[in-house]
């Protein structure tokens, strides 16, 4: 009898040991309760109807921008805790430019774009703080974060369009390509006739370099290859002549040869539509070829941003440098690939110091302090890293030395 009890005890202890990394029931309950409160409040704001425009009309900081992200916080309120997917992100998308957002999966790059479209998974995903200012075609500036759901439908599609990663699943398999294209047109231009819509759809298919647009118009999605489908998706995005195209990993699922075709197409389109593209990808090669401005994200924050040349020719943040070094370059003849050790921190429990510290090979005493402030290096280039301060100090010292030498 005693034996049995002891055995049971041991078993229980073992179980507790094993379940140590799981959250206890009570904790989950507490977080869920708190989350429900917050979500309810935010959903109430979101679901309001007939809201006066003045509530979400703002002023662009610079009228030459299409979008301005200003201290955007986008959180997911999950039972395990609040996932700070985007945690204080600020950057601009200037008119007629391609802005590339790079980062590893889970860094918040996709969530940033979903927040802009207000397409975050409801009801857990919410914009907690900050502004997204959008410069519409009619000259008004909307604060997307405050636009209620009802009014957002007018902006989506007509003003900005999105291209997704999976061309296989983003088209509805039971409708013909043409019907799906026409539907978008009817949605935004209700007075358009059927014939007009067809004309426009076919013209758009031609724009994206589809060889026989008339025959593709009456095909079903499964009859097309991945590259073709991605072209159709791009055509769909272009239909309403959007101001801004958000391309979320548009070529990740495609072969290199097809990727080259699609990138070529996107570049031409940018010139045609006279709009901007926000290109989200983890592929630095794609970014280098396409983007004018680059935003590097890590664990929900921007760690470095600048023009494409600044980021690739003169990267400052150790993460940016590491990312670039870890790509196996063609014909480089290296012995061992450079790697950034470790993995991305868990977005639920982010540390109070620099998120990259534990993986950083250049860390030093100062890195134990609070999360580093963003420092401007040039008008377009900014970095959030203590190294910059250090460099500045060194520069000062050097200048002093120069002074001393001069005095001597």
């Amino acid at each position, binding site marked *: 009898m005693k034996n049995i009890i002891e055995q049971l005890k041991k078993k229980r202890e073992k179980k507790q040991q094993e*379940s140590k990394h*799981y*959250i206890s029931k009570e904790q989950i309950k507490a977080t869920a309760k708190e989350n429900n409160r917050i979500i309810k409040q935010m959903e109430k704001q979101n679901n309001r109807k007939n809201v006066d425009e003045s509530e979400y009309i703002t002023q662009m900081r610079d009228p030459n921008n299409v979008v301005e992200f200003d201290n955007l916080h986008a959180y997911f309120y999950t039972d*395990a805790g609040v996932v700070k997917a985007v945690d204080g992100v600020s950057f601009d998308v200037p008119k007629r430019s391609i802005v590339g957002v790079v980062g590893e999966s889970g860094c918040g790059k996709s969530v940033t774009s979903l927040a802009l479209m207000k397409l975050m998974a409801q009801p857990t995903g919410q914009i907690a703080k900050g502004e997204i200012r959008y410069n519409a075609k009619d000259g008004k500036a909307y604060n997307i974060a405050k636009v209620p759901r009802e009014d957002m439908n007018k902006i989506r599609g007509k003003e900005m369009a999105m291209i997704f990663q999976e061309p296989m699943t983003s088209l509805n398999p039971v409708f013909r390509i043409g019907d799906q294209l026409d539907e978008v047109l009817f949605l935004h231009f209700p007075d358009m006739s059927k014939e007009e819509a067809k004309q426009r759809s076919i013209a758009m298919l031609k724009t994206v370099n589809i060889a026989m647009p008339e025959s593709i118009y009456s095909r079903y999605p499964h009859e097309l290859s991945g590259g073709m489908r991605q072209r159709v998706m791009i055509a769909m995005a272009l239909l309403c002549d959007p101001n801004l195209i958000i391309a979320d990993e548009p070529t990740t699922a495609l072969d290199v040869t097809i990727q080259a075709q699609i990138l070529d197409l996107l570049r031409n389109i940018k010139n045609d539509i006279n709009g901007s593209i926000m290109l989200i990808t983890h592929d630095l090669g794609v970014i280098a070829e396409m983007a004018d401005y680059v935003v590097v994200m890590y664990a929900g924050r921007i760690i470095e941003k600048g023009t494409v040349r600044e980021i690739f020719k003169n990267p400052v943040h150790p993460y940016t440098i590491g990312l670039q070094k870890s790509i196996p370059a063609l014909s480089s003849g290296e012995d061992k690939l450079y790697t950034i050790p470790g*993995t991305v*921190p868990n977005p639920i*429990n982010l540390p109070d110091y620099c998120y990259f510290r*534990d993986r950083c090979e250049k860390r*030093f005493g100062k890195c134990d302090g609070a999360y580093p402030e963003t420092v401007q290096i040039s008008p377009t280039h900014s970095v959030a890293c203590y190294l910059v301060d250090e*460099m500045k100090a060194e520069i000062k010292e050097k200048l002093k030395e120069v002074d001393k030498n001069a005095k001597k």
Partner: protein
Amino acid sequence: MSTLVNELDKNILPDQENNNEKPEVSLADSAKVISPGRLVLRRFFRSKLSMVGLITLALMFAFSFLGPVISPWGEVQPTGDFKWVTSILPHQIKVTEINEDTGLEEVVTYYFSEVSDPYKVYTKTPPSWTHPLGTDQYGYDVLTRLMYGGRVSLTLGFIVIFSEVIIGMFFGSISGYFGGATDQIIMRVVDVFNCLPGLPILMLAAALIDGWGVPARLRIYYLMGILTFFGWSGIARLVRGQVLGIRELEYMTAAEATGLTTSRKIFKHIIPNVMPQIIVQATLGLGGIILSESTLSYLGIGVPFPYAAWGTMISSTSGAEGRDILQNYPNIWVPAGICIVLAVLAFNFIGDGLRDAFDPRMRR
């Protein structure tokens, strides 16, 4: 400025190398996660409907299994109001007598009545404090019989679904995993079972049992057997479909590539991964089985009188006093009906809740 920076970072580098101790647990593991089991439970308990189902079912179980312990009456114990009744039995006797007038023999019929010994006749009683739901025409306490009826329905439902799942899973996984001729044979058998019109077949089978003269107490086991026999095909089909899907997943290819035995592949890799769907299907199926059992009992071929079942209790509306009971004594048959509806609804709610809880897309 920026070129300067590039030059400088080379100088700063070497000083930091001694700082390279690794933290105990990496930042990726710094937050606790929700265990998979708890995740499912969370999602299940979040749905209000499934909670309603669960509570209803719990109450029902308590009612059926604890109720009879408390109840002062038994299942087949006449307790209602009764009167002593004597019945008059008319008799006639034919006697051969010699007619005194004619002197001929003739048959004479004598008429007389016999008064029987007084005996109890139970009457239907309306609800009262001693019999909250009254008594039926045999004087049995309706509430107590409702409890016993619940026992039959719930245990029968669980046993049947359990055996159905075992059989269905066995044939379904074999069929899906091996494919080819095995699949063809099993699935055609399943097709045949699906073609059979359920109720008539069940009635036929029940009538057959009647014919065999199976004792009343054992009939419930035969009933279970029949319901299982005609019910496993649905589960088999579901399991087969799931297995076909799982077989194509890469972890199955990996299992094949590591050279695992077939039984291990089926029992360790496939079955645990179809379990959620099976549990959902089984829960939803429970309601159906309770319905079938009730229907059969109603038709008088399920649980036989005097034993109680919800269906049998409703069938009291079709007997000799049926009309009277239907119109004037709803306390006898309505509660049984409500019990059936509640049980089936509860199982469906729970099934739906489970389906949502197991669905990874419902992540929150």
